[in-house]
């Protein structure tokens, strides 16, 4: 083992051991086993947040379904902001990827005849969501992880936190990472780097996301000079448990659950989402898209038709009419979570729910092979923005997105790495700078100064205030001011923990800095988009404005650290912009 600044050199380095990262690693191992691949992850791969996904993964397989219909649902779901070439590639390859997972042992739920079962999902006109009971992400992630173990040639750096991308002359050459167990800070060089670092729900106070979802990859890319795309689109999931923010999967509604207000009324019928029917109707009512359902909730609050709880207003999800048998076979985890965290049994009781921050449509801007504008840098999964999700992601599209674009990014990175030259020597000096920054500036700083937790709380509060389900110019501008102030103060956070080994305080400080950068991008994009589209609803600009805003917004980081927003066109192939219609 080398003890210098550079610890090891690889051909392709994958940052992230979630669905996207592992799929990329396996793709490379399969296309070119001679390439030297490594996966770096800040948690053990099977702890990645993909593990919490519940509902399912969409892929056309049923006889009555077609690729075009899945494309249309996705494009209209995205409020026409998704790039249609990417959507077409995604829809075409999703079934193959899901089948591949079937071959690797994923325990998909089955029909009595042994074929893979599919369920309905929000915003989808056909049943096409593959599921493994309601622990789909868990089973997918463990299947991927265990399959990756077969490829013993893939090196893993578990519990290593990447703090910086090494860039020279517009090309990425590796990363600097902290080994959490030892505290050792060293560079891992590579000809290509793939980011699969997941989402950033933790910039908000109330989220379904795990503690690790701090948007590190987006911040790494942003600082290295790659732009972030469509950052203003933050998905609120309509059904999270109050207090914890634990998600009650959309599958609960797909299986027939109802959303009711304090009068027991299925209020979605008042918001142009169709008429209530006893059994679920596709693309209607409870199976409408997430943006519209979350917005309906806010209107119910305004009308005073929600229930007050210690954790703010809530509505109820009613599963009682589904019966114990269906709940236990199709939604066992929902029951487990309700019993454990709310001490209620959904077989007999109503589940209290409220909208909760769930998913980032935006991310590191990539082309349809996962390549970012920065040579040698690739991204896939929630951290990337290809974009297939546009202004609103449909439930069950993101797991297959991790697979499809994880594999594509992996293959593209492999190809690039095969042709790339040697790592230049300047990289070592850069790595040395980063090591010094972490060791002297941060670790050597000592206690006192600002508290990480307090700054984080203030950031989250500001984001909830400014970038909620409904937004206005002035509130976003005010939020941006608060962020600017927090940016100043974050330079003074104190570190009481001087230990090298498993220093989670150091991590929290680095994650906070990442989240502040991303929060800023979200608000800066949001301010620029003077219209309402999908998840970005501005009460000061309530209408969609295709004239001015049928375009992506890209946030670049200027050399002085400020954000510059510019535009890039949306690719339209076969589905010209139209009205989003649900329930009619």
């Amino acid at each position, binding site marked *: 083992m080398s003890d210098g600044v550079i610890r090891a050199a690889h051909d392709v380095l994958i940052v992230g051991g979630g669905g996207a990262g592992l799929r990329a690693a396996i793709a490379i191992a399969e296309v070119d086993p001679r390439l030297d691949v490594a996966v770096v992850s800040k948690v053990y791969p099977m702890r990645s947040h993909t593990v919490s996904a519940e509902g399912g993964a969409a892929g056309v397989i049923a006889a009555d379904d077609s690729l075009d219909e899945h494309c249309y649902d996705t494009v209209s779901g995205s409020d026409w902001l998704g790039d249609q070439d990417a959507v077409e590639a995604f829809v075409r390859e999703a079934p193959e990827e899901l089948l591949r997972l079937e071959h690797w042992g994923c325990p998909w739920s*089955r029909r009595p*005849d042994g074929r893979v079962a599919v369920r309905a999902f929000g915003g989808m006109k056909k049943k096409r969501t593959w599921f493994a009971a309601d622990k789909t992400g868990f089973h997918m992630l463990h299947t991927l992880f265990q399959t990756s173990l077969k490829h013993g040639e893939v090196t893993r750096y578990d519990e290593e936190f990447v703090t910086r991308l090494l860039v020279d002359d517009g090309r990425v050459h590796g990363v600097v990472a902290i080994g959490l*167990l030892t505290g050792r800070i060293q560079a891992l060089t590579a000809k290509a780097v793939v980011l699969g670092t997941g989402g950033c729900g933790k910039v908000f106070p109330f989220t379904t996301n795990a*503690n690790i979802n701090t948007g590190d990859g987006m911040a790494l890319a942003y600082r290295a000079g790659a732009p972030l795309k469509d950052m203003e689109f933050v998905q609120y999931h309509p059904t999270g448990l109050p207090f914890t923010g634990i998600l009650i999967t959309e599958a609960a509604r797909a299986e027939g659950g109802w959303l009711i207000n304090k009068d027991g009324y299925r209020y979605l019928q008042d918001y142009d989402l169709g008429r209530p029917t006893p059994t679920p109707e596709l693309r209607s009512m409870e199976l409408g898209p997430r943006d519209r359902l979350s917005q309906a909730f806010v209107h119910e609050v305004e009308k005073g038709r929600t229930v007050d709880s210690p954790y703010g207003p809530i509505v109820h999800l009613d599963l009682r009419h589904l019966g114990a048998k269906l709940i236990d076979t199709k939604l066992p985890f929902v029951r487990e979570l309700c019993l*454990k965290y709310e001490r209620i049994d959904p077989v007999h009781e109503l589940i209290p729910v409220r909208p909760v921050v769930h998913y980032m449509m935006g991310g590191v801007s990539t082309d349809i092979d996962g390549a970012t504008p920065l040579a040698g840098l690739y991204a896939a999964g929630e951290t990337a923005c290809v974009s297939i999700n546009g202004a609103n992601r449909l439930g069950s599209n993101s797991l297959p997105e991790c697979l499809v674009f994880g594999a594509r990014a992996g293959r593209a990175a492999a190809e690039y790495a095969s042709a790339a030259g040697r790592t230049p020597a300047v990289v070592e000096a850069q790595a040395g700078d980063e090591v010094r920054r972490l060791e002297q500036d941060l670790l050597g700083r000592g206690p006192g100064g600002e508290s990480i937790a307090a700054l984080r709380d203030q950031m989250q509060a500001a984001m909830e205030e400014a970038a909620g389900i409904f937004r206005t110019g002035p509130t976003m501008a005010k939020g941006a001011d608060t962020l600017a102030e927090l940016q100043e103060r974050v330079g003074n956070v104190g570190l009481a923990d001087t230990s090298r*080994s498993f*220093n989670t305080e150091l991590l929290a400080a680095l994650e906070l800095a990442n989240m502040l950068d991303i929060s800023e991008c979200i608000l800066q994009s949001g301010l620029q988009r003077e219209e309402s589209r999908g998840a970005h609803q501005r009460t000061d600009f309530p209408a969609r404005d295709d004239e001015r805003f049928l375009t992506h917004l890209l946030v670049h980081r200027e050399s002085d650290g400020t954000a510059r927003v510019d535009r890039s066109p949306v690719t339209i192939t076969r589905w010209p912009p139209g009205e989003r219609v649900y329930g009619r």
Partner: protein
Amino acid sequence: MADSIRLRVSRYRPDTDPEPHWQEYDVPLRKEWTVLDGLNHVKNEVDTTLSFRWSCRMGICGSCGMNVDGEPRLTCATFLSDHAPGPVTVEPLANFPVVRDLVVDLSDFMAKLPRVKPWIIHPDDHRTVEPDVEYLQTPEQLDAYKQFSMCINCMLCYAACPVYGLDPEFIGPAAIALAERYDLDSRDRGERERLDVLVEHDGVYGCTFVGECTRVCPKHVDPAAAIQRYKLKAAMETVKAFLLPRGAR
């Protein structure tokens, strides 16, 4: 209900401490707070140097296992109110080397897991590469292995198993349960290969059926059952090989 509860937390900093010692913190006792919420309160408000792992806070990522009042538990699924009036002792998972405070070293398990080949093995190699058709699997065939596929690798079973504590060579409950999971999968043909690994001296026969692994498993995987069934399977195979010396292979 009292409004606060005392946590007795094991601290160990390798740079300065020769061995772990106790530190006590009082945290608010709220009905929806888990032990993990208590620890986070300490981390955020009281003592930022306390170190522990957690992520999903919904009992699925498997990272927050610790010994709470002597029992291996997921701290995100263990409520403070169930341990009132306290004090609640919080220690790193038993049977593992301690890295720091409540963080243990899992390298041993991570090295063992690939040994049991927890992936689909099938002589037709294309099965794992070409996504042409789906392989049929009836709900009954799925049920046969489903329970053993629920393992979140939380390591509570290793912390509870005295055999593992005494002999860290023992491959251990979760790894064997995962081997069983693939053996029972109708798409797999790797039984023989895994058997060869698991009949070794540190394999299934190291287990003396203490059964604690199953008792503490938060996901009802029942590794104890997996192991005993494996023993029987291995014995039957051996008898078969003995009776039909060549034919069986």
